[in-house]
Every structure is written in structure tokens, then in C-alpha cells.
């Protein structure tokens, strides 16, 4: 079926501005993704899935410019013992990175992985599976054109987190990175991500978690005010596996984080959480799709948004429980703390259930600072500003507590405190 003309035009313009990386083991996957992309076209303002977030700047042939943030405070996770992998405007920086070697994990770059590679069975595969029932064209574009990324195969418990650190240095950078993580049976890894990456960033991470394996992901999306990002996580969970991801977003004119998880083995656990702090020209979209296709699995979605000065938060979250996925325990909560009347939160929580023995709950709220809490703190002598900050931290606590490691929780809370402090001046 032919695409509507505006969509066709936009898609053609974007494709014309990109070069297809040549050859290698990923070529067939890229060709297949390109064909899928051409069939679906890039997202437009009239697409239902983009009702609350305008895709035009994410889709445009040229990335809108974004000033590079100037700040001198230490970056998040700086104090964490980790294996560092650095990208500047989407380009791997070998000098700033640690050697890509660590026990129980095999790490390679997408750009120079050998011709025959384990990632061949996964690259673009989970992304393709995640295209139904809802199309995610920016992810197909990513599979097709990604210039680099990290391929990790985890064979045991990894002793320290693997950190992907992104720097944004050029006002016009347009980065496309594609990571693949395969956690084999008995494997367990923590992946950290931080930094604003580029003026415009398109990132996909495919995560295959085998039976009994664990994957933990903590991400802090950077402070650059003008940067734009569209990210996708596609995950497939085996039996008795654990998948936990948390994202903190502070600032950014446009962020869309999609997370698509399929629970395919019994007794798997999937937690997806996020907190965002938005001030002024800020638009943040969390789009989540969790599919239960096995028995006795648990999934949690916990999203908290703090919005002020006209910031916008979006949540589209779905739990799909397939026929036969009995004993599913699904939970979804999305909440916003609106610090003034100009800010808005748009939420579309969805449940679709085809099994008859499940427990699924969802809720969504918007509200102001809790007056009782505020009075309690002020009655103890805390000035209003500090009291409001503490209550803001209290508001996002349920999401932050999804991070298992307490020291990483503290890292995240520390960033939130710094953000709040800056806002109070």
C-alpha cells in the first residue's frame, strides 16, 4: 500500500540524507530494516502513536541545532567503579574508553565486529519483533543506518557495570547508535548510560535475556536543554530472568523513550521505571509496551514526572496479556507532579488481557505538592523551598527505588537534588 504523500516525502528526504553502512554481517538485517522502513514510512503528526509528541524534528532530514551545555560539575556515575565506553557525538572514542575487556563479558564495537558474529542472530531481530502490533519506524531507521554501537555477550556475573558515556560536542551532530546485549543463561550485567550524546540522538538497544539471566539498566539523560532524543529498548525475557531498567531525564526539549518488552519464559520479572524533571521548553514521552506471553510473570511500570513552567510529560503504557499467560502480575503507575498551572501531563494507560487468571492494575494521577507534607516539613523548620524539594524527591521515590543497587540510587537522587538546587538558584 502506498504511503500518504506527506509521509512519503518526509521519508524520502530523510533517507536521502543518510548513507547505508556497507557490507559485513549486519548487511542483510540492514536491508531488511530498510525495506520495512520504506513500507511503513517515518512517523507523522497524524499517526495515532504520535498523537502527544510531534515527530517532525526527530524525522527531519537535518538535525535541528542544539547548543552544547556548559557545566563544570562532575557527571553522574563518575564515582562508580565501571568499565567506560565513550562516544562523542556518536563516534567511539578509544582513548577515553577503557579496554573492552572484562571477565564474563565479551564486548565488541558494531563498527568493527568480525564478519561472522554472534550478534547476527539478534541485530534488528528484536527490533523487528517489536514492530507489531505498533510500528516504530525510527527504530527501523536506526537498524538500517546505525553507524556504531556496542555488542555485549554476557556469559556470567559481570563484576562491575559497563558504562556507555555520551558526550555532545557539536551543535549539529546527528548520531545513530545501535547496541545489542545478549545475556546468556546464568549471566548478569548492569549497564549504565549517561550523557546527552548529540544534538539529535537516535538509539536502539536490543536486549536478549536468557533463562535465569539478569539485566539491569540505569540511564541518566543529560542536561543539554536543546538536544533531542528518540530511544528504543527492545527486550526479550526467558524463563526466570530479570530485566530492570530505570531512566532519569533532566531537561531536553524533546525526548521519546520507548521500551518494548516481551516476556516469553515463565516466571520472568520485568521492571521499567523512569523519572523526569522538566522545566520550561521540555517535552518528555515515555512509551512502553509489555507483552506477557508466558505463565506467572511479573511486570511493573513506574513513571514519575516533575513538570514546571509549561513543561509537558507524556506516558503511553500498555500491558498486553496474551491468551495462556495465566498468573500474570502486571502493575502500571504513571504520575505527574505539576508545579504550576502551565505544565501538562498526557497519559494513555492501556491494558489488553486475553487470559482469565491474572492480576493487572494501572493508575495515573496528576497533582500539586502535597500540602499536608509541606506543612509537616515546614513545622519542623524547613524553609518552603527545601520542603518542596524533599517532597519532590519523595514523589519520585517509588520510581527510583526500582534501582536495586543503593549506591546507584544515591547517584540518581544526587542528580535530582542538584537539579532542584539549580532551580532554586
Amino acid at each position, binding site marked *: 500500500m502506498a504511503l500518504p504523500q506527506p509521509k512519503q516525502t518526509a521519508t524520502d528526504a530523510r533517507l536521502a540524507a543518510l548513507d547505508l553502512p556497507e557490507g559485513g554481517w549486519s548487511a542483510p538485517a540492514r536491508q531488511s530494516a530498510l525495506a520495512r522502513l520504506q513500507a511503513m514510512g517515518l512517523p507523522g503528526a497524524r499517526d495515532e502513536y504520535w498523537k502527544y509528541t510531534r515527530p517532525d524534528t526527530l524525522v527531519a532530514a537535518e538535525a535541528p541545532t542544539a547548543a552544547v551545555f556548559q557545566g563544570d560539575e562532575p557527571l553522574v556515575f563518575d564515582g562508580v567503579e565501571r568499565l567506560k565506553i565513550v562516544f562523542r557525538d556518536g563516534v567511539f572514542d578509544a582513548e577515553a574508553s577503557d579496554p573492552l575487556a572484562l571477565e564474563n563479558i565479551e564486548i565488541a564495537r558494531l563498527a568493527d565486529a568480525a564478519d561472522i558474529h554472534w550478534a547476527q542472530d539478534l541485530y534488528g531481530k528484536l527490533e523487528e519483533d517489536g514492530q507489531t502490533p505498533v510500528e516504530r519506524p525510527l527504530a527501523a531507521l536506526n537498524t538500517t543506518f546505525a553507524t556504531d554501537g556496542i555488542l555485549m555477550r554476557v556469559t556470567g556475573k559481570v563484576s562491575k557495570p559497563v558504562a556507555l558515556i555520551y558526550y555532545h560536542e557539536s551543535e549539529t551532530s546527528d548520531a545513530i547508535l545501535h547496541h545489542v546485549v545478549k545475556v546468556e543463561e546464568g549471566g548478569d550485567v548492569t549497564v549504565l548510560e549517561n550523557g546527552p550524546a548529540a544534538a539529535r540522538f537516535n538509539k536502539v538497544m536490543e536486549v536478549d535475556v536468557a533463562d535465569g539471566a539478569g539485566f539491569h539498566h540505569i540511564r541518566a539523560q543529560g542536561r543539554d536543554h536543546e538536544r533531542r532524543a528518540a530511544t528504543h529498548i527492545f527486550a526479550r525475557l526467558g524463563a526466570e530472568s530479570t530485566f530492570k531498567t530505570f531512566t532519569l531525564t533532566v531537561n531536553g526539549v524533546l525526548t521519546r523513550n520507548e521500551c518494548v518488552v516481551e516476556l516469553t519464559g515463565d516466571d520472568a520479572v520485568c521492571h521499567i521505571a523512569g523519572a523526569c524533571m522538566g522545566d520550561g521548553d521540555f517535552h518528555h514521552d515515555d512509551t512502553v509496551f509489555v507483552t506477557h506471553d508466558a505463565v506467572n510473570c511479573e511486570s511493573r511500570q513506574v513513571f514519575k514526572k516533575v513538570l514546571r513552567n509549561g513543561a509537558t510529560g507524556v506516558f503511553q503504557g500498555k500491558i498486553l496479556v496474551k491468551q495462556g499467560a495465566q498468573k500474570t502480575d502486571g502493575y502500571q503507575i504513571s504520575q505527574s507532579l505539576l508545579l504550576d498551572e502551565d505544565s501538562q501531563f498526557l497519559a494513555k494507560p492501556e491494558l489488553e488481557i486475553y487470559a482469565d487468571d491474572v492480576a493487572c492494575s494501572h493508575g495515573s494521577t496528576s497533582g500539586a505538592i502535597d500540602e499536608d507534607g509541606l*506543612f509537616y516539613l515546614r*513545622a519542623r*523548620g524547613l524553609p*518552603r523551598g527545601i520542603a518542596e524539594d524533599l517532597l519532590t*524527591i519523595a*514523589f519520585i*521515590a517509588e520510581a527510583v527505588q526500582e534501582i536495586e543497587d543503593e549506591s546507584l540510587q544515591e547517584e540518581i537522587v544526587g542528580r535530582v537534588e542538584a537539579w532542584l538546587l539549580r532551580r532554586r538558584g
Partner: protein
Amino acid sequence: MLEIKNLQVKLEEEDKQILKGVNLTVEAGKVHAIMGPNGSGKSTLSYVLSGKDGYVVTEGEATLGGEDILEMEPEERAAAGLFLAFQYPVEIPGVGNMTFLRTAVNAQRKARGDEEMSSTEFLKVVREKAKSLKIDAEMLKRPVNVGFSGGEKKRNEILQMAMLEPKMCILDETDSGLDVDAMKLVSDGVNALRDEGRGFLVITHYQRLLDHIKPDVVHIMYDGRIIKTGGPELALEVETQGYAHLIEEEA
């Protein structure tokens, strides 16, 4: 210490007079108790004194150590030495009890122009005080009041009071939700803070609490006024005979 003169208060949202001219003086070193039936305005009095929104003072005054407190923000009243132990302490998830306590102590010190307490000194003091209230390290680490039992919440209030060392303590139905053992523990905590420089206003429904925290003066509040003032025997009278005869006397 605390002087309240002809205090008249109505609700902000509706035209309803709650306090209709309260007169009360709590001297330093004394414990005053206020008893009274439900809806007489006891809790309102505690909220108005500590600065909660939603009330309008239409007449009268309240001073603490000679300073007019009604014009102050709640945090200024706290720094001036006023402390309200809440009937329903609020849960603050994600904020550690210890962090909260230290922030409060130092905020008040800062407001008074005193030096902030160092973390080692703070730790030492808080551990000592927590111990006497049977508050363990685990409870100090947990988020403020989250998942605390009724007794733990009230003990936590007293710990805050002990750390903040206020001049004037108002206890709003601190005995509600407490079993006998917890009441003893809380009362011991309060009694340990009794000294010449500190005043107490204990709001309660039951004489029972006053067995533990022995008052110097007992007031009976009804319909927004103090209708009778006496010694500890007044509380016993209420316990055996109820309020009806006192209200009739007043009418």
C-alpha cells in the same frame, strides 16, 4: 512562654467560626493539658499556633516569648521554638529519617544564626536520644514515617522534639493509636524533656495520658472556648463524669 489572648479563628473556605475567644498562658517549666469533646477546637488551636493554612485569625493574638507568632511562616515559628507533635505524622517516602532530622536541626540553627551541627556530632546525639525511645538504627534509616506503626510514628515525633529542643511543645492527641507500652515509652520521652525553660501544651481526650505526663494545669475546651481551668483533679473529674456537667455549668 506562650500567651494566647482572645484568639478567634474561622475557616478560610467557609464562614465557620471555630475558636471563639481562647485565653491561655503557658508558663515556662509548666505542663498544661487541654481536654474537651470532639469538635471543640482543640486541634484547630494547635494548627493555628503552628501556622497551618486554611484558617483565618479574626481577632486576638498569640505570642511566644513575647514575639507575635501569628504573622510568622510555619518554619519561622519552628525556629522561634514552637513544636507541634502531630496527631497524624505525615509519611515522606524516599527521604531518610536521619536526613530529614539533620536537615530540620540545621535549618533551625541556620535560621537562628547558630552554627550547623557537624555530621559526627549529630550522629552521636541522635543515636543517644533514639536509644532511650527504643528507636533502632533501622528505623532511623527508613523513610520518614513510611511503614511505621502508630506507636513508631509517635515515638518518631518525640525524637524530633528531642533533637530540635523547642521552647514550647504542643502535643496533639499524642496518645491516640498507642497501646499501653507505647504510651509509657512516649510519655517517658516527653517527661525527659521537661525542664524549667520549656512549656508544654498537651491536647488529649483521655485522662490516661495525664497519668504519665502529669499536668500542672488542666483546661476544658468546649465550642471554641476554654470553659474551665483547674488542677490535675479536673482531668479525673472528666474521666469519671464526662463533659456534660461542665458544659451545663457553662451554659
